[in-house]
């Protein structure tokens, strides 16, 4: 008879790593999504080119390859990161590239009329973006951001490939040691689901908060 409590404890340790990766990766993704998304609509060509290159590169190559580059190739350039840092960096940059397009789309969706009102009221471009465009664009971004965060959560499983002891990695360890496949993988199935569900709940709460007072403005 296997004593499961120790093994389940192992999986929970992995779950904590997954949570950390998801939270920090998402935080990084949001920052780069705004930077690159606004960069793509900059009036400076160089900024647009840089943002577009970043987005196309990270959307166009697999997270798996990106992860290996950051972990195995960057050290040759003298940059050595811990596995957790590597995971956060690769996941954040990858998902941030998708998020950038969400930011750009939402900002573009705030119509010409609002921009013209800003010009007529003599707001600077920055003031218009900060006070008028972004506050209205944010509610449009949130549903897709929620999707992206869940994608990122599920993407964390690939970091087990660079020996980061996330939930999936630990499940494989438990499987190897106990010979049982059902119990470790059923456990992480439930845990992934619960985490994704918490993200959904959180995003729904956020959406309600930022759309408060906008009732009747949009369907």
């Amino acid at each position, binding site marked *: 008879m296997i004593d499961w409590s120790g093994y389940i404890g192992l999986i929970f340790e992995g779950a904590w790593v997954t949570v950390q990766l998801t939270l920090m990766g998402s935080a990084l993704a949001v920052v780069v999504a705004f930077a690159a998304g606004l960069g793509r609509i900059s009036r400076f060509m160089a900024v647009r080119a840089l943002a577009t290159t970043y987005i196309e590169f990270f959307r166009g190559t697999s997270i798996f390859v990106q992860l290996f580059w950051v972990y195995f190739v960057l050290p040759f350039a003298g940059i050595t990161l811990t596995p957790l840092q590597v995971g956060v960096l690769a996941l954040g940059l990858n998902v941030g590239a998708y998020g950038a397009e969400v930011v750009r789309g939402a900002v573009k969706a705030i119509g010409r009329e609002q921009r013209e009102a800003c010009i*007529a009221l003599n707001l*600077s471009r920055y003031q218009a973006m900060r*006070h008028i465009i972004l*506050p209205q664009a944010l509610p449009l971004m949130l549903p897709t951001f929620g999707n992206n965060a869940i994608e990122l959560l599920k993407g964390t499983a690939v970091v087990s490939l660079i020996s980061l002891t996330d939930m999936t990695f630990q499940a494989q360890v438990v499987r190897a040691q106990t010979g049982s496949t059902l119990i470790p993988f059923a456990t992480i199935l439930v845990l992934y689901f619960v985490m994704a569900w918490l993200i959904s709940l959180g995003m729904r709460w956020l959406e309600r908060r930022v759309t408060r007072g906008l009732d009747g*403005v949009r369907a």
Partner: protein
Amino acid sequence: MPEPIIRIDNIVKRYGPLTVLDGLSMEVMPGEKLALIGPSGSGKTTILRILMTLETISDGFVQVDGDQLYHMKKAGSLVPADERHLHKMREKIGMVFQHFNLFPHKCVLDNVTLAPMLTKGVPRAAAEKRAMELLDMVGLADKAKSMPAQLSGGQKQRVAIARALALSPKIMLFDEVTSALDPELVEEVLNVMRKLAAETDMTMLLVTHEMGFAHDFADRVLFFDRGKIVEAGRPEDIFRHPKQERTQTFLRKIIAAGHRV
């Protein structure tokens, strides 16, 4: 004889292959109330949009309150205006739009105080005091805390007028401000504008299809067709005794469509 506050000199506006304004010149005197009428696509709204720097011009010069709008002096020669110059020039001009363009995520009071606080550094208390005076003038002091979505079209437009006035512009542009309103809401907006004309010496340019209002309100009426001023004059002359055939045709059509002159 005072200097014109607006001097439009031979401007050309093209959208791709389409020429909207072709060498148009006009002047507006300080304090003048000017109505721009004419069929849609005749270029009258484009004039307002050019004055608000919402468009660029393809050629020509626009002078506002003694300074070039689209050009600035640099080392003795005129060069295209930069953002800073435009920013300085826009202080002189306010605009009210056909579709109000209120900020839907801000309450009425914040809509009015936002620009003075951000662009002129007015402290919140002073901006709110001024905003309440303006909202009172347009009859909406009790709606200060409402969101735009809770207002009727006429109320929204009155807020938009207060918002533009909060920056104390010398020139106000009204772009078909009643066209998007239900008929029973038109009068409340026109009343605010009458009051404004009576109480201030602001220069006002008005693009409108409300011929009756243009008749009572304006010192001078310009009839536009195909990017040109076909006829200009006092309202009673333009509306009662139009000289040009195109003006007569346009007014007949408008009357047939049920507009009062």
